[in-house]
């Protein structure tokens, strides 16, 4: 790790090398773009929720190759773009309109036009991946069009694109993320590549904050305008960016973005697939990491219930060494975890084996929000039931988010279920137990009563769907 802090960052924006200096590394990419006169990119919320600020970041995909990834520039600390390539709406018309731009003009995909640059960049990124569909613009809000004209535009460019300069550029750019040590406006930003360096930095700077995808922490930069004296980015750390699959288990590095998990683990854990499908939207999943989702310890984080139901195990590391611990023991209280100062989440391991004596496993997850797409859960639930030949329950996991101060399992009900037959009658009894298992709160997303009803009803829904 470089000991000398650089006072300047370089990045490539629309093919042009830019030197960024004297600004805090927590300045968002969106702020930087607009302040530097690149006002095509808009701010609709500054919260990661509207997609108006979407830009395309060249980043490694699950296949290890570079892709254009749609990301919310309002959540990206400028430090994170060091050494990287960004394309904005101003940079994709190469003499004439890009096909996605032309399609949007043709179908009337813009009305007021304020959301349009974001849609264009989401479509642009998807265009080179051959994934132009509704899902690629789920994270883009439009208040004018009702989306139908945008969908028509998307269908015009859905087939695979030709070889063009943008595709060429992907092939010509290096994939490795280098290390960064930047100091701007009295704030430091480190992007080490080795876990040992991370641990050393945490020793050196007790006030350091870890940042991965910044989809959670980014709200502090963008919305709450908080400053952080020292940020340590985990994005480039080799030991945190791996995925390991055997027939026994899957181990996922803490810094692996959710979109990689989506791609690489599809079909392995149905409940994980399902939850990732409902998790935020494309721009956020391109950045958000598993470690960040666990690290925030939010009671409404969506992956913890899934991982709890699958008995996931965490690996943590600090300067004194490594330890493992069941995820169930990690959450200590509202936004409190067992993570010690100087400690980092390294990975999360999920066993693929079912309980001894069981012949089949039923497992699924559910997420209920006010809006189906890209919403925070009112209640999230994940269930895992192993049955023996007699259809008796030999293993039960019922995990929830949004019902207590931390993601939790309904352990009492799990134990009660053991040995019971997987029948409607059992479910009805379990439901009545579930109704009293937690004392959820009323908040702006839903009432305590609604949550209680969901806790019980979701389990019955699971039974109905997986009899």
């Amino acid at each position, binding site marked *: 790790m470089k000991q000398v802090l650089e006072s300047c960052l370089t990045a490539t924006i629309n093919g042009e090398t830019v030197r960024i200096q004297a600004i805090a590394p927590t300045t968002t990419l969106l702020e930087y773009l607009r302040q530097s*006169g690149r*006002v*095509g*990119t*808009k*701010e*609709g919320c*500054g*919260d*990661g929720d*509207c997609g108006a600020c979407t830009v395309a970041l060249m980043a490694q995909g699950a296949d290890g190759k570079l892709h254009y990834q749609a990301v919310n520039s309002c959540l990206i600390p400028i430090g994170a773009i060091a050494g990287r390539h960004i394309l*904005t*709406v*101003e940079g994709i018309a190469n003499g004439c309109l890009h096909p996605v*731009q032309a399609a*949007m*003009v*043709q179908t*009337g995909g*813009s*009305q*007021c*036009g*304020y*959301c349009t*640059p974001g849609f*264009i960049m989401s479509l642009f990124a998807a265009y080179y991946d051959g994934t132009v569909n*509704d*899902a690629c613009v*789920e994270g*883009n*809000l439009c*208040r*004018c*069009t*009702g*989306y*139908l*004209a*945008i969908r028509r535009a998307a269908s015009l460019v859905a087939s695979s694109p030709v070889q063009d300069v943008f595709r060429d550029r992907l092939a010509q750019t290096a994939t490795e993320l280098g290390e960064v040590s930047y100091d701007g406006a009295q704030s430091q930003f480190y992007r080490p590549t080795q876990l040992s360096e991370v641990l050393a930095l945490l020793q050196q700077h007790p006030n350091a904050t870890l940042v991965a995808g910044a989809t959670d922490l980014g709200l502090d930069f963008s*919305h709450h*305008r908080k400053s952080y004296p020292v940020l340590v980015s985990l994005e480039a750390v080799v030991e945190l960016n791996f995925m390991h699959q055997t027939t026994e288990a899957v181990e996922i590095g803490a810094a692996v973005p959710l979109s990689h998990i989506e791609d690489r683990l599809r079909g392995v854990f149905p409940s994980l697939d399902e939850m990732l499908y409902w998790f935020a939207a494309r721009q956020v999943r391109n950045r958000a990491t598993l470690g960040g989702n666990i690290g925030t310890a939010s009671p409404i984080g969506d992956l913890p219930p899934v991982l709890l139901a699958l008995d996931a195990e965490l690996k943590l590391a600090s300067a004194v060494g490594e330890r493992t611990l069941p995820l169930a023991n990690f959450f200590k209280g509202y936004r409190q975890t067992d993570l010690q100062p100087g400690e980092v989440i390294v990975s999360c391991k999920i066993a693929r084996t079912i309980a001894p004596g069981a012949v089949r496993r039923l497992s699924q997850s*559910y997420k*209920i*929000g*006010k*809006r*189906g*797409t890209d919403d*925070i859960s*009112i209640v999230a639930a994940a269930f895992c039931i192993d049955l023996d030949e007699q259809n008796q329950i030999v293993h039960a996991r019922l995990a929830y988010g949004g019902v207590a101060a931390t993601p939790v399992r309904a352990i009492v009900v799990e134990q009660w279920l053991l040995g019971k037959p997987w029948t409607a009658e059992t479910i009805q009894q379990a439901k009545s137990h579930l109704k009293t298992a937690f004392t959820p709160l009323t908040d*702006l*997303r839903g009432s305590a009563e*609604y949550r209680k*009803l*969901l806790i019980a*009803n*979701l389990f019955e*829904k699971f039974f*109905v769907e997986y009899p």
Partner: protein
Amino acid sequence: MTTVGQRKSHESATGHVSGKALYTDDQRQPIGMVSLYPVTAPHASARITHIDVSAAYGVAGVVTVLTAEDVPGENDTGVIIRDEVLFPTEVISYWGQAVVWVVGETETAARLGADRVVVHYEPLPPILSIKDAIAANSFQGQPLVVRRGDATTALQAADFCLTGEVEMNGQDHFYLETQASWVIPDGEGNYQIYSSTQHPTETQVIIARVLGIPNNRVVVTCLRMGGGFGGKESQANPFAAVAAIAAVKTGRPARVRLRRSQDMTLTGKRHGLLGQYQVGFSQEGHITALDVDLYADGGWSLDLSPPVLLRAALHVDNAYYIPDIEVRGQIVKTHKTSNTAFRGFGGPQGMVVGEEIIDRVARFLGLPPEVVRERNFYHGEGATNTTHYGQEIFDNRIACIWSQVKANANFAERRIEIAHFNQSHSYKKRGLAITPVKFGISFNKTQYNQAGALILIYTDGSIQLNHGGTEMGQGLHTKMLQVAASALGVKIDRFRLMPTSTDKVPNTSATAASSGADLNGQAVKDACETLKARLAPVAAKLMNLDAPEDLVFEDGWIYSRSYPNDRIRFEQVVEQAYNDRVSLSATGYYRTPNIYWDAATSQGRPFYYFAYGAAVSEVEVDGFTGTFKLRQVDIVHDVGESLNPLVDQGQIEGGFVQGMGWLTMEELVWDAQGRLRSDAPSTYKIPTISEVPEHFHVELLQRAAQEGVIYGSKAVGEPPLMLAMSVREAIRDAIAAFGAVDFVPLASPATPEAILWAIESVKARSGAKSGVAESLLVSPTV
């Protein structure tokens, strides 16, 4: 070839998709521009006991702090009455109200300065709901009554009588571009304002009032808006006004741009509304009498609430003839943001009450709701085709649209299919509904129904087009270009559409009430006619013809009908006109004829005409969670002879989805202290693409030219929003299928939670577990 009627892309579409279209806050900042940031009150209702701004000056970059003392003119931005203090000094009227504004070299400096300002408050108990306001006798404005016949007597005489109420949520506009205004002083006492405003003239008038200077010293320009939807009709004014005060005080250009949560906390929304009714009806479902009280939540000040309430009262009938009817309306005063115009302007709220009543009657009688809807349509001539405010519906297109959309949607077959589906599914139910829309077009305030245009032809034949309307995405500028190109007989690319500016067209009306194209289109056409009349003799002389009236202006050429091959270029005529000293600029003007309104009796012809539509929606509701999925939408809508089918279809689709958001997921949550908790898109959920079904079919009513309107077209901005009532009614239909009851109350918005409670209620009252009785759905279809 005329450009009117073509599927032209938005005139700024290329700018939109390439990021080159500039919005107010995208402009290159003038040197020395300062930014403003508000100090907001942490109470919904309080007395201000002390304001100390001195600490703000300790922050580097703070230029000054604006307080009431800095207001050179009147400290009030009220638009109908003066009840909207800009810098409150005595009381706080809603949570988040701006008390003072800090001016900084940068937004950050202003924000940090704002953190240092000390304000002391003595909290008072706030009024936060319509019912609390009614109980506290907290009203504003005048009560209104619209009546026909004698509802009281008719209710007594009715076969059946039901009483009920329905309350609906407001709606945040959630325009993607938040409020933004720039004010640039010229140092000579004049101010150039760039504002994201739907009503530049009013913004001008308010700034002049607040600065205490004549209107002619203030020029307000609107480049374009990143969405308005009514939210920038009056609500842009206060922010432009504080920026103007900053410009006066500092002598420097000043800017205000709200962050999203500020915008949501500070600005008014669609009015929440409570409707309480008594309805009388016959065994066949004919509504014979209706008595309704409407209470609109005006928020802390009057703003535009009176006309909003009036429009609600004039749309309770929707498409239905009700012989004896009395509608009373009041505006309650609460400690919330001052509610304002929002697409439909009260009409949607009134119509939701009307549709609620229809459904209530239908389920009570065990009739399919669509049958009761049909039986009550306005029809025939005379009384049965006349609204409760005395306007005859001379061009009633409801029945025609209704049968067309039913056929398009295969309504009858799907009714049966859905009944079967519901019989075989206990935990999921589908619902189907069809609802009509009849929406009155014109501003209720008669004097707003006028417009102006200014066309400037330059000697090279290029043209600047100015009109009084603003562009917020609705495609008005595109349509105006089409109108001008057609009327002047030149190609569209000859024009530059100018930003809307009060120094080009003065005394304009808000671009609102769906009337932008109707009014400005006529004014643009008028200006074109004037110019053509001046150019024709010049052309005739050039071509040695003696009948200028015989000339045709087409595609940049001018020729005589009698000798079409002998033609002359438009620019040649223009050049000659200049040489002949013929004026090449003209204003145009229009006022809507034949409309009048008697406010004392609430009778008249407030609307020039009506826009019609109908929609069929199908949903599937999950009985475990209350979540729903919109499966299919079919729409037939009447836009007259469309000026631009691409734009009009966009308005219909966008309006529908926005209405669906209002009715199903956009929940404004205030806490017990009166603080808006859903103040960001993370908590306030507008529809995404995934809420919009694949099958979404829109058809424009064909051969629908509207007499007396620009090129036979019709207004389209607002009416489609109300087509989304079909989603709410389809959800209700699905909920009903979870049991057998004669009444299915459903909160609005119909969030998953609201739906689940409605299902639970249906199940409980049916005294049976789910999936027992589907009597309603198996009843004969029509």
